C-alpha cells in the first residue's frame, strides 16, 4: 500500500494537492451552483415552515419526533467517520489514513453543522433556541442536567468545537504550504496569499513548532477518540432512556456508534470517489485507500448485524407483552418494508466487501456505499418514528410520514453539506500534505541516534543552508554537535522525529496543559451540574436533584472540551505561533520540498560557519548579517 505513495516526490505531492486550489473548471461551478440551489431551496422551505407554523410538517400526536430528528441523528452519525479516520486510526498507526483523513475531517465539521440545524428546524420557534443552552439558572430558566436533551447540546457543542480545533491544528503546516505557494505565484499582496498567511499563524516548520505540534496532535487524537464514542451514545440515550418499547434498549449506545461510523465511512467513499476524479488526485488517493475503507466497514457491518439480532432477541427473551408486540409490529406493520430493507442495505451490501473483486472496483464501492447511506437513513427514520407511532395503548397509536416540506428541507440540508464540501475542496488542501510527505520521506530519516541540548536561535546573523534531502539535513545537524556552532535551527516541510532527537527535544510541556485542562474540565462539569441542580432542588422523575450518574456525561464532555482548549493554548504558547514574525531567513520552499538549516553566529564566525555548512553538500547557502 505504501509503495505507490513512496514513489512520489515532496514537490509532486505539494503540486498535486495545491494545484486544484487554483482555477476551477466549468464542471466544478455547475456542481457548486446545483448544491447552492438545493441549499437555497431548503432554506426557502424552512422559511415557509417558520412563517406558516409546524403544521406543514408531518409531526403530530402521537408522533412528535419525525424526519427532522431522524435527520439530526443521521448527520451526527455521518460526522463520526472523520474522527475515526483522523484520531482512532492515528492512534493505531494505520498509515493508509493519510490520503483520506483531511477530507474526512472536513466532512465531520460540515456534517455536524448540518446536523446542528435540525433541532432548530424541529423547534419551530427557532428564535428561542437559547432555552436549550446549558447555563446555570438565570432568567427563570432551569437547565436540567439530567435531561438527555441538555446532554445533546453539551455533547454536540463539544464535538463541533473539538473537531474544528483538531481539523485546524492538523491543517496548519498545509496552510503554510498554500501560503508560500500563492505568494510565489501571485505575490505577497494577493488576497489569497494574505488569507492563507493569516490562517497559517506564522507557521515556518522549525524544530520547535514540529515538536510541540506532534505532541499536541497526538493528545487531540487521544481526547477525540472517546469523544466520538460519547457523542452518538448521548444521541442514542435521547431514545434509550425513555420508557417506550423500541427505544428503551440498553444496546443502543454501541449500536448507534457503530451505525454512525458505518454510515460515515460510506459517505467518505461516496465523496472521495468522484472527488478523486474531479480534482485529479489519482496519484494520491489510490484504490488501496478505498479498499482499506471498505475493510474497515466490514467491522462495522459485523456490529450492525450483531445488533440487528440482539435487539429482537432480547425483546423475545424478556417475555414482556409490550416489547414483544412492538417487535412483531415493526417486522410486520407499516414500517416492515424499512425493517426488512435494513438487512440487505446495511449488512448484506457492505458484506460484499469481503470479496476483493468488489472492494477494488470503484463503481461497486460507490454503489454499495450509496446503499449503506440509504439504509442508515431509513434505519434512523424507523427508530425515531416507530416507538411513538405504536406505543403501549392501542387508542394512542397513530401514523406519520414526512411531508413535502420535510423532504425539501432534507434535500436542502444535503445541498448545504455538499456545497460546503465543494467549497472546501477549492479553498483548502484536500489531502494532508505534511503527513503524506512524511510517509514519503519518513523511512529515510530514522537512522541516526545522537543527542545534544539545543536552545532556539536568537541571533539573526548567521548562515542558512538549503538541502534537498532530509538525510543531508540530519547529517549536518549531527556534525554540528561536534563543532563550535551550537546555536542553530532547522526548517522542514515534514516532522522529522530524528531531528527532534538530535536537537534534544524529547519533552513537550503541552502534556501538562492538556492534563490540567482535562482535570479542570471534569471538575467544572460536575460543579456546573451540581450547582444548577441545587438552585431549585427540584425532584424530576423520582431522581435526586444531585445525581452523579447522569452528571458523569457533563463531566466527561467538560473534560474533553477544556482539555482540548488547554491543549491548543499550550500549543500556541510553546510554539510561539502568532506571537512572533517569520524569521527573515525563512524560505518559502521550506513548506514544499526543501530543508533548511540556519546556524546563528557572530560576524567573525560567518566564514567558518559557511564553510562548515558547505561541507554537508547543501544546494545553496546564504549569509545573513544584522
Amino acid at each position, binding site marked *: 500500500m505504501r509503495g505507490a505513495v513512496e514513489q512520489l516526490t515532496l514537490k509532486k505531492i505539494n503540486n498535486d494537492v495545491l494545484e486544484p486550489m487554483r482555477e476551477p473548471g466549468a464542471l466544478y461551478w455547475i456542481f457548486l451552483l446545483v448544491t447552492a440551489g438545493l441549499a437555497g431551496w431548503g432554506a426557502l422551505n424552512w422559511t415557509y415552515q417558520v412563517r406558516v407554523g409546524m403544521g406543514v410538517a408531518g409531526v403530530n400526536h402521537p408522533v412528535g419526533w419525525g424526519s427532522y430528528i431522524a435527520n439530526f441523528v443521521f448527520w451526527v452519525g455521518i460526522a463520526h467517520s472523520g474522527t475515526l479516520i483522523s484520531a482512532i486510526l492515528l492512534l*493505531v*498507526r494505520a498509515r493508509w489514513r493519510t490520503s483520506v483523513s483531511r477530507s474526512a475531517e472536513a466532512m465531520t465539521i460540515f456534517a455536524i453543522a448540518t446536523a446542528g440545524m435540525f433541532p432548530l428546524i424541529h423547534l419551530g420557534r427557532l428564535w428561542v433556541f437559547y432555552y436549550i443552552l446549558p447555563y446555570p439558572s438565570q432568567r427563570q430558566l432551569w437547565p436540567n442536567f439530567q435531561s438527555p436533551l441538555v446532554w445533546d447540546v453539551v455533547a454536540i457543542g463539544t464535538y463541533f468545537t473539538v473537531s474544528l480545533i483538531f481539523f485546524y491544528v492538523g491543517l496548519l503546516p498545509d496552510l503554510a504550504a498554500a501560503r508560500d505557494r500563492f505568494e510565489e505565484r501571485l505575490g505577497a499582496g494577493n488576497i489569497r496569499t494574505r488569507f492563507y498567511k493569516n490562517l497559517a499563524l506564522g507557521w515556518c516548520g522549525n524544530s520547535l513548532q514540529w515538536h510541540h505540534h506532534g505532541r499536541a496532535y497526538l493528545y487531540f487524537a487521544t481526547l477525540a477518540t472517546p469523544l466520538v464514542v460519547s457523542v452518538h451514545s448521548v444521541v442514542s440515550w435521547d431514545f434509550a432512556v425513555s420508557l417506550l418499547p423500541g427505544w428503551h434498549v*440498553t444496546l443502543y*449506545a454501541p449500536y448507534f456508534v457503530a451505525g454512525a461510523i458505518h454510515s460515515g465511512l460510506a459517505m467518505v467513499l461516496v465523496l472521495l470517489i468522484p472527488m478523486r476524479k474531479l480534482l485529479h488526485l489519482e496519484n494520491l488517493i489510490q484504490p488501496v485507500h478505498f479498499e482499506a475503507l471498505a475493510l474497515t466497514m466490514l467491522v462495522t457491518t459485523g456490529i450492525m448485524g450483531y445488533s440487528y439480532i*440482539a435487539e429482537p*432477541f432480547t425483546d423475545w*427473551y424478556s417475555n414482556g407483552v409490550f416489547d414483544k408486540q412492538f417487535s412483531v409490529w415493526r417486522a410486520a406493520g407499516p414500517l416492515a418494508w424499512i425493517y426488512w430493507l435494513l438487512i440487505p442495505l446495511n449488512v448484506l451490501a457492505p458484506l460484499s466487501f469481503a470479496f476483493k473483486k468488489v472492494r477494488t472496483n470503484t463503481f461497486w464501492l460507490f454503489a454499495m456505499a450509496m446503499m449503506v447511506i440509504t439504509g442508515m437513513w431509513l434505519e434512523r427514520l424507523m427508530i425515531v418514528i416507530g416507538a411513538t407511532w405504536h406505543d403501549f395503548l392501542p387508542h394512542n397509536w397513530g401514523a406519520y410520514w414526512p411531508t413535502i416540506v420535510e423532504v425539501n428541507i432534507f434535500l436542502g440540508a444535503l445541498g448545504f453539506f455538499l456545497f460546503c464540501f465543494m467549497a472546501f475542496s477549492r479553498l483548502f488542501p484536500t489531502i494532508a500534505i505534511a503527513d503524506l510527505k512524511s510517509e514519503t520521506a519518513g523511512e529515510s530519516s530514522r537512522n541516526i541516534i545522537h543527542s545534544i541540548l539545543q536552545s532556539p536561535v536568537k541571533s539573526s546573523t548567521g548562515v542558512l543552508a538549503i538541502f534537498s534531502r532530509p538525510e543531508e539535513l540530519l547529517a549536518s545537524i549531527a556534525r554540528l554537535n561536534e563543532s563550535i556552532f551550537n546555536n542553530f535551527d532547522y526548517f522542514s516541510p515534514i516532522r522529522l522525529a530524528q531531528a527532534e532527537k538530535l536537537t534534544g527535544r524529547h519533552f513537550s510541556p503541552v502534556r501538562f496543559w492538556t492534563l490540567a485542562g482535562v482535570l479542570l474540565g471534569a471538575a467544572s462539569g460536575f460543579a456546573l451540574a451540581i450547582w444548577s441542580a441545587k438552585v431549585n432542588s427540584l425532584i424530576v422523575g423520582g431522581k435526586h436533584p444531585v445525581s452523579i450518574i447522569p452528571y458523569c456525561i457533563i463531566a466527561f464532555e467538560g473534560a474533553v472540551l477544556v482539555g482540548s482548549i488547554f491543549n491548543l493554548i499550550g500549543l500556541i504558547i510553546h510554539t510561539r505561533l502568532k506571537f512572533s514574525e517569520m524569521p527573515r531567513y525563512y524560505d518559502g520552499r521550506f513548506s514544499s520540498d526543501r530543508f533548511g538549516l540556519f546556524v546563528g553566529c557572530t560576524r567573525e564566525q560567518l566564514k567558518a560557519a559557511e564553510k562548515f555548512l558547505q561541507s554537508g553538500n547543501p544546494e545553496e547557502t546564504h549569509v545573513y548579517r544584522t
Partner: protein
Amino acid sequence: MYTALKKARQNGVVLLLLLATVCLGLYSDAFLFSDKRIWLTLLVNFIFFVPLAAGMVTWPAIIYCSRGTWTDGMERAALRAFWFVPVSMLLLIFLWFGKAYWAPWPQMVAMHPIWLSSEFIFARAAVALMVFILLATFFVKRYSNKLLGTFLILSYCIAFTIIGFDFVMGPKPNWYSALFGGYFFISGLYAAITAWTLAYTFAKELKTEVLEDLTKLIITFSLLTTYLMYSQLIVIWYENLPGETPFILMRLNLEPWKYFSAWILGVVYLGPLVLFLTRRARTSRMFVKIVCVILLAGLWLERWWLVVPGVQGGYPRPGLLELISGVAFASLFLLIYNLSRIDYGRAK
C-alpha cells in the same frame, strides 16, 4: 545457562502442580457439602477463565486481521493458552451435574420452555465452545491466516455472547439487557489482553515498544468495558423499571455489594487509565507485572460480582472458599500454560 533456565521452569511446573493439586483437592472436598455457594464459585471460575483463555487465542487473530505488525513474534505467548480452552468442556460438564443447586431454569421453564430448558442451554454452550475449539485448533497452527482469524473472532463473539446471556445473565432470568452479551465478550478480551501482557513481562528479551502497545490495549479495553457497563447503567437507572432496577440497586445501594462496586470501578474500570498514564509506568516490566496481577484479580472479582448478587441465597462476600477456588483454577491454568508445547518467543 539454558539448563539452569530449564531447571527453573521445571521447578515452576512442579510448584504449580503441587499448588493445583492441593487447591483443587481442597476445593473438591467442598463439593461434598453440595452448597449453592460452592457451585457458584465453579460458575464464576468458568466465566472468568474460559473467556480469558479463549480471548488469548483470539487476540493474535485480531491483530493479524487488523494488519497489526507490532507483535514481534510474541503472539505465541498468547496462543499457549489454547490448551486450557478444552478444559472448559470439562467445567461445563461439572456445572451440568450441579445445576439443581445453582441454576434457576428448572423453575423457569414456563417463561420459555425450550430456550430456557437446561438441556438446550448446555447444548448450545457446548456447541459454541466446540466450534471455537475446532477453529482455534487450526488457527494455532496457521495463525497468520486472516480468513481463519476472521472466523475465529466471529466464533469468539458468538460463543461468549451465548455464554454471557445464559450463564451470567441467565441465573436471574427475569432480568435482561440486550447489551450483556457484548459486555461479556469485550470484558473477556480485556482479561485476555491483561493476561497476555502479564505473560509478555516474563519474556527474556522484552521490547519496551511492544510492552507499551500492550498496556495501551489494556487501557483501551478497560475503557471499552467501562463504557459498555455505563451504557447499561444509565439506561436502567434513568427509567427505574421494576424488572431492571434490581441489578443496579443491589450493586450500588446495598451492602456489602456497593463496596465491591466501588473497588471494581476504581481498579478494573478506571485503574488502567490512571496507573498507566505515564510512559514510564507503561514500560516498566515490574510495574506492569504488578498492575496486571491486580487487574486480573479484580476481573475475577468482577465476574463474581456479576453473578452472585443476583442469585437468591448468594453468599454476600468472597471468603476462603472463593480464594481457594480462584487459586486452584489459576494454578491449573498456569500449569497447562507452562506445559503447552508451543514454544514461546520463537520468531515466526
